[in-house]
């Protein structure tokens, strides 16, 4: 499997994985007694929460990257603008994904 069909399958697989992950994330935040620093940080620091949050970040990042890519391919027709947008999107996704993941790691391990 390669190219467009691989893209298509991964888009669907990540979509399915995101259904329970995102619902879990939102319900958990909703059930917290508050959204203050100590409460939220304490929640992220729980090993199981950190694990699933990390998993959600990776899959969300991937799903988002693939989705935005399709939109750019369909609507940005100018060759240069198309390539630039795709590059920018990939760069931003990797940057945000890595930053989010490192943040969770830092909170969960208490390291660096």
């Amino acid at each position, binding site marked *: 499997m390669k190219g467009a069909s691989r893209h298509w399958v991964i888009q669907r697989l990540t979509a399915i994985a995101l259904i329970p992950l995102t619902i879990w994330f939102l319900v958990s935040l909703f059930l917290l007694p508050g959204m203050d620093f100590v409460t939220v*940080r304490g929640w*992220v620091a729980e090993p199981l929460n950190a694990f699933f949050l990390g998993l959600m970040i990776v899959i969300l990042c991937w799903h988002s990257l693939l*989705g935005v890519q399709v939109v750019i391919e369909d609507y940005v027709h100018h060759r240069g603008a198309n390539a630039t947008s795709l590059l920018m999107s990939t760069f931003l996704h990797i*940057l*945000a994904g890595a930053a989010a993941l490192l943040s969770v790691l830092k909170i969960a391990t208490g390291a660096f």
Partner: protein
Amino acid sequence: MPTRPLSPHLFIYRFGYTMTLSILHRLTGVALSAGFLMLAWWLMALAWGEPAYRPLTTGIGAILLRVVLALWLVAFIFHLANGVRHLFWDAGWGLEKAQARRSARIVIVVVAIAAFTLVYLFFLRGAK
């Protein structure tokens, strides 16, 4: 250019609500991608420490954030409900025109009820 068939030009179609849902799926998707950047920012502030997190929970920042979060909540509910509809299509179910129209109506009703309830609960919860 990609090796797959591209999405056709929007304006050659007669406007219909199944089409509106399709466009909304992409719009909410892109909005939620921006939300992903926001999520990263929020987690970074959380990892950085109290002073970095405080602007998100106090004053004008907190109010703005709540409004944006409520909008994202609605976008998420729609993208989730319509995404499930897409997954059923991908599995080969509900592709007939009448079925697609019916599932579109179901998505609209479900999203309207869920969005109203959740946004209400979200603001009812107050700025705790």
